[in-house]
């Protein structure tokens, strides 16, 4: 019987093509990526059928946590955060910020401390700031610091849009207070941040 000779083939594969693909994908992801912002609080937003996208810049965001704490943040387009802090210390001459504190304010995300704790909060290092137990910006009618932040924020960036990012479980009266504060400052148009939900009217058409 003649033996059929199967030629032994090398198991080595040319990796060049795979390498090309990997780096193509890598380039794509590197260019499209936007890092998840480092939020100091976790908020689970309710869902809606609204499909309006949120722009990246000119945004002033008010976050409300489940416990009803209020946080304030603003993007730093055209150095509006620096301007905001300068305006705050102009209004409250007691708060004289050092250069380090100013830098910390620009880099940090949301602010959730009353003004009298702000200097202490900004004076800490990154890690301490992360674990700092922020009590939230006061919104009582007697001491409405959120209103001051909104006012100064709009002065430092007149094109700013205001968004409210509330947790599903947060009580309505707190949101109502925030909305009232906005209305007091003549802000009658604002956006609520929500998750996307399927529109039943569109589903029907499918």
């Amino acid at each position, binding site marked *: 019987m003649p033996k059929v000779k199967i030629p032994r083939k090398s198991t*080595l594969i*040319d*990796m*060049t093509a*795979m*390498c090309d693909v*990997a*780096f193509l*994908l*890598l380039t794509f*992801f*590197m260019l*499209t*990526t*936007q*890092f*998840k912002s480092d939020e100091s609080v976790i908020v689970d*937003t*309710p*869902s*809606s*059928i*609204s*499909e*309006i*996208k*949120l722009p*990246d810049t000119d945004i002033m965001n008010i976050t*409300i946590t489940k416990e009803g704490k209020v946080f304030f943040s603003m993007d730093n387009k055209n150095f509006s955060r620096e301007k905001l802090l300068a305006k705050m210390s102009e209004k409250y001459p007691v708060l004289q910020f050092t250069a380090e504190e100013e830098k910390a304010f620009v880099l940090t995300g949301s602010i959730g401390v009353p003004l009298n704790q702000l200097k202490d909060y900004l004076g800490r290092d990154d890690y301490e700031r992360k674990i700092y137990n922020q009590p939230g910006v006061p919104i009582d009618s007697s001491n409405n610091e959120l209103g001051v932040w909104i006012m100064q924020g709009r002065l430092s960036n007149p094109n700013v849009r205001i*968004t409210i*990012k*509330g*947790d*599903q*479980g*947060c*009580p*309505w*009266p707190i*949101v*109502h207070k925030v*909305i009232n504060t*906005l*209305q*007091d400052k*003549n802000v*009658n*148009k*604002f*956006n*609520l*941040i*929500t*998750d*996307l*939900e399927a*529109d*039943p*009217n569109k589903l029907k058409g499918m």
Partner: protein
Amino acid sequence: MAELEQKQVGTKGKKKGRKKMSTRVDLTPMVDLGFLLVTFFMLTTTFSKPQTMEINMPVKPRAGDPPVTAPVVAASKTVHIIIDEENRLFWYRGLATQPLDPLAETNFSALGIRKVLLEKNSSIDGMIVLIKPTNGASYKNVVDILDEMNITNVKRYAIVDVDPADFDLLKEYKKI
């Protein structure tokens, strides 16, 4: 494993010529690295921007403003939705003191409030919905109702405070 084959070109006799090294490099580690980074960027990226819902509130009257007469609305055209603290939902039409459709409980589902709104919206011309969240209502429920306005295409709606008369109605309803 590694593909570093050095082809022996020169024969024993010819020692003068330099050894020709293969130009092929093993790309496996590079591919590994590539995919590792791809995975990293895939996991850290946020593709979808958050959605937003636009809200317009009426301008608050200020001291010194000329007095504004409140628009007169036919009571029969108003539908009131009350959200209470136990995630329960109630609605009635007309005035709280003499409702045209009596207070009834409904729910947040498609067969609940949405059906009511669609029915009323088609039968009443120029319907106005008044959303009344009580102090214990959660933010989610309010957003759900606002969303329902978008779904059912109700054009005129407002968020207002709960009247004492509404509380009386609720109390009476819950007693039964």
